[in-house]
């Protein structure tokens, strides 16, 4: 036993006597109930999915490099757009946030582990199977899902490929995993906070995740209901969405977007928490307006339930409905504006330095705001008839998801890598990764605003000649952004293998319980609760 190198070995018998370090070999990862191990698993899984979904985006951009049909057939193109969306949403962004929550929430609130460690293991290990099932549909007869990630009925029921059933089960499994993860996070935050850690002392990442978890348990079951209805329409002769049998296809859109709109906030609220942790550190000032941040997050979460029909302005809802959903949507700009102004004020006259996490966070604030503004443009119901289903929408949601969710995840990884690995990452390479991602991302998505306003429809493999130049620019940017992510992989692997030793407080003036722990964080932490002042 003496050779065991974990930090909780018998050398400190006064502190620990009944804990063990990680088991050895592959089974450690299969059987683990340790929040750090599970967080790591989530993050690696999400990175693999990010590259998979990214490879599909490369196929899309390669086909759109020039007008005309050159590389893939239109059916496969449709499968690529669908799978890219599904994998990025359910495979990359959501698991990455759950991974960060697993790693950081217990460290931030002074808890020894997640509240339900065995369920935690289960909710992770469902994911790889769901992902394999989803991706395997591409190799089935009739191909994979080709109806867009929103899988509108009857396109996905009456006209869907035979593999749709596998897609439905994959969504069920992903949903179960998310719900269990969310319940675990709520139980941890509500019950395992260290003494003295009151709700209004919690770091904002914990707050935003608590609210996100409530959104998850509220809407993932609705999505499960929607795909269950699809399953019944396809196999059991019901007519939920079949007009011939008395159903209504528009009903599908209502149910889907009742899930779908809170879902987009599920993918952004944890980012708000991450950025609210990083900006104060590198501006060397406390976060401006903590309380207003908490209330703004809660307001956004509430409003997300009453705006869903702004995705459906063109289906024929009455004027009163258009107006209600238009104004309710615009209202979201208020709490979001509160957040953006708080971040800007936090940086204002701060002693700022620009390490990689800070660069990604500042880019987040600027670019997410651009995405927010195009969202406001889309919320104007009469104008939406022009924008609907064009590349303008694609530009909008990629501006909120790539520099929003993904940049925040990058920022979080760079910020906490020293805590996870015990090494500082290579700052020069990190900055290179940032600038290449920043330029690549803007090259890809900014021209899409223009071609969208000019009328290029989304999800079509060919386009009119006047869109050729901007599409070529977007494709070049896309290839650049895509390849850059291999550099990210290299930086992370390099940091795990070695590098400058990280101090306990890896960043000067960083606030939070996680920085009171040594780097790398020991396998077991806070077995006795810390004192929170």
């Amino acid at each position, binding site marked *: 036993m003496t050779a065991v190198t974990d930090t909780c070995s018998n050398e400190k018998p006064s502190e620990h006597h009944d804990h063990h370090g990680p088991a050895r070999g592959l089974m450690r990862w299969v059987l683990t109930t340790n929040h750090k191990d599970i967080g790591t698993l989530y993050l690696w899984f999400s990175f693999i999915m990010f590259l998979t979904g990214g490879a599909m985006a490369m196929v899309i951009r390669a086909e759109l490099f020039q007008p005309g049909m050159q590389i893939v057939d239109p059916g496969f193109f449709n499968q690529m757009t669908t799978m890219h969306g599904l994998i990025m949403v359910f495979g990359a962004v959501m698991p990455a946030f759950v991974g960060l929550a697993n790693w950081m929430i217990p460290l931030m609130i002074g808890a020894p582990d997640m*509240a339900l460690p065995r369920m935690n293991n289960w909710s992770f290990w469902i994911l790889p199977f769901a992902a394999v099932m989803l991706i395997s549909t591409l190799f089935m007869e009739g191909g994979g899902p080709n109806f867009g990630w929103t899988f509108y009925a009857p396109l996905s029921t009456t006209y869907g490929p035979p593999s749709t059933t596998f897609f439905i089960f994959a969504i069920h499994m992903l949903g179960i995993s998310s719900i269990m993860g969310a319940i675990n996070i709520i*139980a941890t935050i509500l019950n395992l906070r260290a003494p003295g850690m009151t709700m209004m002392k919690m770091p904002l990442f914990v707050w935003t995740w608590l609210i996100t978890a409530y959104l998850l348990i509220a809407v993932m079951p*609705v999505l499960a209901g929607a795909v269950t209805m699809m399953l019944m329409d396809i196999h059991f002769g019901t*007519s939920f969405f079949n007009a*011939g049998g008395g159903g209504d296809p528009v009903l599908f859109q209502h149910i889907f977007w009742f899930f779908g709109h809170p879902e987009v906030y599920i993918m952004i609220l944890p980012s708000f928490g991450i950025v609210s942790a990083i900006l104060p550190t590198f501006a060397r000032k406390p976060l401006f307006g903590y309380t207003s941040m908490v209330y703004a997050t809660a307001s956004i979460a509430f409003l997300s339930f009453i705006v869903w029909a702004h995705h459906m302005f063109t289906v024929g809802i009455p004027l009163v409905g258009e107006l209600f959903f238009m104004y309710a949507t615009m209202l979201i700009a208020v709490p979001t504006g509160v957040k953006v102004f708080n971040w800007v004020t936090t940086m204002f006259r701060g002693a700022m330095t620009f390490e990689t996490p800070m660069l990604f966070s500042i880019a987040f604030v600027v670019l997410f705001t651009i995405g927010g503004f195009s969202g406001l443009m889309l919320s104007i119901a009469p104008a939406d008839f022009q924008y609907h289903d064009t590349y303008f929408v694609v530009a909008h949601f990629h501006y909120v998801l790539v520099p929003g969710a993904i940049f925040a995840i990058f920022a979080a990884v760079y910020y906490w890598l020293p805590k996870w690995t015990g090494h500082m990452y290579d700052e020069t390479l990190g900055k290179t990764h940032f600038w290449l991602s920043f330029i690549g991302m803007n090259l890809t998505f900014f021209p899409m605003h223009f071609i969208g306003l000019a009328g290029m429809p989304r999800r079509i493999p060919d386009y009119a000649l006047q869109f050729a130049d901007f599409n070529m620019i977007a494709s070049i940017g896309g290839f650049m952004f895509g390849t850059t992510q291999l550099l990210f992989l290299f930086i992370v692997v390099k940091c795990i293998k070695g590098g400058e030793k990280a101090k306990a407080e890896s960043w000067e003036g960083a606030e939070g319980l996680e920085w009171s722990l040594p780097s790398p964080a020991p396998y077991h932490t806070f077995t006795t609760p810390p004192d929170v002042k």
Partner: protein
Amino acid sequence: MNADDDTPDDLSRRTVIKTGLVAGGMFGFGFAMVPLYDVFCKVTGLNGKTDPNPYRYNAETAEVDTSRSVKVQFVATNNAEMSWDFKPSVTEVVVHPGEVGELEFFARNPTGERMIGQAIPSVSPFQATNYLHKVECFCFTTQTLEAGEEKIMPLRIIVDQALPRHITKLTLSYTLFDVTTMGERTQPS
């Protein structure tokens, strides 16, 4: 139950039960949206779906409002791969509110198979949906046609006297669906 004595495990168990109930309840809510949507649409007429049951017409109490006339237009569309010939005998009728308008729809099954069709009505503008009554309609039940069979199907409508005055023209559109695999329905729901 004194909350101070609870271990974190007890607290967590209670949180799991509560949040699990929320999740289960929301799964149910997803399904509850189906009838809620139907009721909402019925009250507002939003999706243009008319009453699937025959209108009980009372010739003695119904007063014909001769002060105005309403033009009712008819559209017949085939859904997706439905191969029947399907059309109205006239494209429009002009009626006074309260007066019965009569016309016929023609359907022919040109295929070599026995087929079942279901016509789904929709009224535009949707504000008029609840004011267009059908005394007799082929859409109340499914229609079965043998191979090559054709059929004249009567339609009798009444525009309600309470129809808002600003609506002077409305469209009754029928989309014909192939429901052969779903079977016959001979009773109005």
